[in-house]
């Protein structure tokens, strides 16, 4: 009996990590035949919120490109398969999309965590791999020629603008100490570690530094530790659930640092503001995109997004804009190459600058964007606005952050 139960539990663990996919065939990209673009997205598991947002961005781009006659004349159909936020499933998905579905092109999944294993299999088949959300240093560690991270800067530099802003504050106002806590995720930890080294070099002491596993579900002890450090500033390497949990604990503990920045979460629109209400005020996030930005095609993107999916501009996730940018880059590269052949696209993407709703983007030989650091966005009056650097700012940074309501 016990053995059978043991097998059953082991079976449960196996089943929990598994996920099914569908399959459909797509014609090869000749003349102006319709084509299918394959994407593995997380519709369940930890990244399901981000997966949905990426799908919205990709769908909107496909609708736009088809409305103007297709991708170099090819009508585009998107094919999505669920990877359940699993690093094993994402590999099977791209293998299946390329070898069985024979999709013409592939776009990237969510997170560095999934992009790293996916990029290896995509590269093996010679496909271009433009991707919206895998920018951690490990993504580029294997120096693949086929991957292109479609954001304004590599993830490691995301908090550079924030550190510049902090260090530029008058000495009397500048925080004296910072508490850091980050997931051990290839997206979050490199950002926090880089910010820590820059701020320590700038003379700001470290009050606390904690790394926690990405699968952590109970964040309160960690948040208590940050609150107990009584640091002037808090830098958190979070995804959405922990971004919310940390702030809630700070509110409950009456801990009011002068400034808080979180790597992800505050850029997720109503998913972030819904649980926190007015207490989002003053919270910052590094961001390459905001709904109010005047970048190439952005006002139209926002307008069409709201027409298609409803809601308000503040509800649009940056993930959707990043996915849309992938489509924009591929569209321009295909026009430049005069082909949707993957090899020609890879060559085209390695040269020139591409206009996106996140601003102009160009890539180096291993697919890293040339930009250094993204903007700082801050929640002010119920919406997230660019506040730094001054040339991109729509408002002045609110400092110190107001106390919790």
């Amino acid at each position: 009996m016990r053995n059978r139960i043991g097998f059953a539990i082991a079976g449960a663990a196996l089943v929990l990590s598994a996920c099914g996919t569908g399959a459909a065939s797509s014609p090869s990209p000749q003349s102006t035949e319709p084509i299918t673009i394959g994407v593995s997205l997380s519709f369940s598991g930890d990244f399901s919120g981000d997966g949905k947002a990426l799908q919205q961005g990709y769908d909107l781009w496909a609708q736009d490109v088809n409305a103007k006659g297709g991708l170099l004349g090819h009508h585009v159909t998107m094919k999505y398969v669920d990877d359940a936020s699993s690093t094993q499933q994402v590999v099977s998905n791209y293998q299946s999309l390329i070898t069985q579905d024979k999709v013409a092109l592939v776009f990237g999944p969510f997170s560095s965590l999934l992009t790293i294993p996916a990029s290896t299999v995509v590269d093996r088949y010679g496909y271009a791999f433009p991707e919206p959300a895998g920018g951690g240093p490990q993504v580029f560690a294997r120096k693949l020629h086929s991957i292109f991270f479609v954001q304004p800067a590599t993830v490691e530099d995301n908090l550079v603008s924030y550190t510049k802003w902090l260090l530029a504050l008058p000495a009397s106002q500048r925080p004296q100490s910072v508490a850091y806590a980050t997931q051990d995720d290839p997206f979050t930890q490199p950002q926090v570690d880089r910010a820590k080294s820059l701020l320590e070099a700038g003379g700001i002491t470290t009050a606390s530094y904690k790394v926690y596993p990405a699968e952590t579900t109970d964040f309160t002890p960690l948040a208590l530790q940050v609150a107990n450090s009584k640091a002037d500033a808090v830098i958190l390497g979070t995804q959405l659930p922990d971004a919310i949990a940390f702030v809630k604990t700070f509110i409950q503990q009456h801990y009011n640092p002068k400034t808080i920045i979180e790597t992800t979460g505050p850029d997720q629109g109503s998913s972030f503001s819904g649980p926190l209400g007015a207490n989002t005020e003053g919270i910052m996030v590094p961001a390459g995109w905001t709904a109010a930005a005047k970048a190439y095609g952005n006002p139209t993107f926002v307008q069409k997004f709201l027409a298609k999916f409803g809601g308000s501009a503040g509800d649009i996730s940056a993930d959707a804009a990043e996915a849309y940018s992938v489509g924009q880059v591929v569209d321009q590269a295909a026009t430049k190459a005069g082909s949707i052949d993957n090899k020609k696209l890879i060559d085209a993407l390695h040269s020139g600058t591409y206009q996106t709703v996140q601003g102009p983007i160009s890539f180096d030989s291993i697919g890293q964007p040339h930009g250094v650091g993204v903007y700082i966005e801050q929640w002010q009056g119920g919406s997230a606005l660019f506040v730094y650097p001054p040339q991109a700012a729509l408002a002045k940074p609110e400092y110190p952050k107001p106390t919790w309501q």
Partner: protein
Amino acid sequence: MKLVVEAAVLGVLTGGVYALMASGLTLIFGVMRIINVGQGALVILGAYLTFVLNRSWHVDPFLGLVLTMPLMFALGVLLQLVFIRPLRTDREALSVLVTYAIALGIEGALGYVFTTNYVQLRAWYENASFPVFSFRITYVYVLGFVVCLGVLGTLFLLLYRTTLGGAIRATMLNRTAAQLIGIDVDRVSAIAFGIGMATAAAGGVVFGLTNAFNPGSHYDLISRLLTIIVLGGLGSLRGAIIAALIMLVTEDITAVVVSPVWASFAFFVILVAVLIIRPQGLYGVRVRERI
């Protein structure tokens, strides 16, 4: 030292919530010998039902339990009748697949209705806390703990002070013998599944007040709940409660004293040590079966 005490108190309070969520899982196993890997999804379903009452009619999350617990009980009875009762052979293995399918169905339906955006239950006291010595304790955790005590206490009374409870315990001890003395084990199983779901509804409220959740949040929950009932002893309610407290207190103290990276490891060291000494778990019963 202050942090350790704070972490221990927090561990006990959150441990109560996990005990409540795991109690349904262990009860269902005890009665039906099935592993309900859908328990995490049922907790999330309970949280969403409360979310609807909370958002649409501003019903306090805890008061909403008056509605959601009977509703979830009824749904549990229905699920047992439709999906679990037809399993006559190889119940342990098949139940994993069937309840996983139920979990996926619930996740898909919730995703369709509510989207995958994260939500959290709201209450006027959600951020309120009170000072104890040099730290602050959140009302939500204390209220949640009180509700857990109330529900678990009621469950114990039901099991040990009522005829139905006697029938449930008899079925847990020996299903065949219970049948022979005239207990309708199918009816008892349906009721036990319903009770398991009602406790999931209560657990969902506290989980939803203390965590942002979306339809996919059940994956992280179920792995922890399964570990709790293995440590406590499969089928033991008392064991589930003690194991939940051990898990949360150990993890929270390790997270603040050593590192969050070692928190789960510390708990698993205890789990392995207990299983070496008592393979049936803390309060589990050794079962012999003729091969």
